[in-house]
């Protein structure tokens, strides 16, 4: 690990190895590229002349254009090298808001700490590559300030853009959702009013105070009748439940509509070979009530229950609109 292996130690044929790399070095200035199958491609690329600053004197200097040797590994070599990490794949990140997901301007990206793709690359990047990357991301700028040393000043146009973005789709979307939620709550309240009796108790008290006038009209009689508190649901016994479902082994339809769950009668731990239908048969006298057991226990997969699962057995009662 981390040892420097000379090329002469790679194969017994040292002369051939040396000749191989010597040929590449000789051919490169002439042909500009040498491709070796299985290893990669050596290329000679031109670096344009550019201005820079002498770090000692602070003077502006011109770096002359020159040629640079680059190497691109072959796909097979790349796969061999990256084999330890080959199990990883690029995965999308979900859960961010739409404002985060929108591509930001470079300045805004600096401010949010979300650097452009290539700048988050690694901490082993050489200064040359960083310079190249920054040039690539901000082509118009000649001198690029470092994000930590000199934070960029947000200009009014950028602020206006971010304000517009905030009051754009996301704001109106959230507003619409709130209005829809309020509407749904109101609809639920109208369709299924409170059946616990508190509302009717209040109505009862108000009606008692005005009983003289109201009792004279037929509408009020129905109102008073309705105002009596609703009796709590009567849980059905095993015999009653058995009588509700036909005792025919050919009938396999499960009951999911006539009854409702009003409590828990017992808890049972599943053993090997037991099914929910068998539990239904044991506790309710019929097999058809297993969907209520599923609903009461929030079982995600009713057909895949595990040994040792504690099953709560629901207490069942008739729904209000069902005949006794």
């Amino acid at each position, binding site marked *: 690990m981390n040892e420097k292996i000379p090329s002469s130690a*790679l194969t017994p044929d040292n002369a051939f190895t040396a000749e191989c790399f010597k040929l590449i070095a000789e*051919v*490169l200035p002439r042909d500009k590229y040498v491709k070796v199958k*299985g290893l990669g491609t050596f290329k000679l690329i031109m670096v344009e002349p550019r201005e820079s600053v002498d770090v000692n004197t602070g003077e502006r200097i011109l770096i002359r254009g020159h040629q640079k040797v680059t190497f691109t590994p072959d796909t097979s070599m790349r796969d061999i090298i990256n084999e330890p990490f080959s199990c990883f794949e*690029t995965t999308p990140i979900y859960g961010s808001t739409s404002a985060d997901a929108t591509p930001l301007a470079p300045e805004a990206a600096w401010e949010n700490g979300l650097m452009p*793709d290539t700048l988050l690359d690694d901490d082993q990047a050489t200064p040359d590559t960083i310079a190249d990357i920054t040039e690539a991301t901000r082509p118009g700028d000649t001198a690029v300030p470092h994000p930590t040393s000199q934070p960029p000043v947000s200009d009014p146009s950028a602020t206006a853009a971010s304000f517009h973005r905030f009051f754009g789709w996301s704001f109106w979307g959230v507003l619409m959702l709130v209005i829809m939620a309020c509407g749904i709550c109101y609809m639920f309240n109208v369709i299924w009013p409170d059946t616990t009796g508190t509302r009717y108790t209040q109505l009862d008290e108000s009606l008692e105070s005005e009983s003289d006038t109201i009792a004279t009209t037929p509408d009020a009689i129905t109102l008073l009748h309705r105002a009596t508190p609703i009796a709590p649901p009567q849980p059905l016994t095993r015999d009653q439940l058995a009588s509700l479902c036909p005792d025919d082994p050919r009938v396999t339809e499960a009951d999911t509509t006539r009854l409702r769950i009003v409590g828990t009668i017992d808890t049972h731990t599943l053993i090997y070979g037991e099914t929910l239908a068998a539990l239904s048969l044991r506790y309710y006298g019929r097999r058809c009530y297993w969907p209520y057991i599923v609903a009461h226990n929030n079982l995600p997969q009713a057909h895949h229950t595990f040994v040792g699962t504690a099953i709560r057995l629901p207490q069942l009662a008739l729904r209000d609109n069902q005949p006794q």
Partner: protein
Amino acid sequence: MNNKEFIAALAERTGCTSREANSRVRTLVKAMAGQLTQGNQVVVPSFGTFEVKKKNERISVHPVTGQRMLVPPKLVLNFRPATTLKEQNK
């Protein structure tokens, strides 16, 4: 110079057949890959150094859709040319 021309030139220099040269190059590349996967550097005098570098995982943003992606870490082969080679191609 493509691979075929490179093998032909190498065969001419070393005085062996193209097939032999090809097989020797393959052996050399395999030996290099073996050393590099073990984390070693391969130093070729007056040519350069081959080494493996680890690139950390990073978050990348799709420029069009704005979708954020987690790019996994990876190992890449890097080549640093020797000063002699740099001077030769200046």
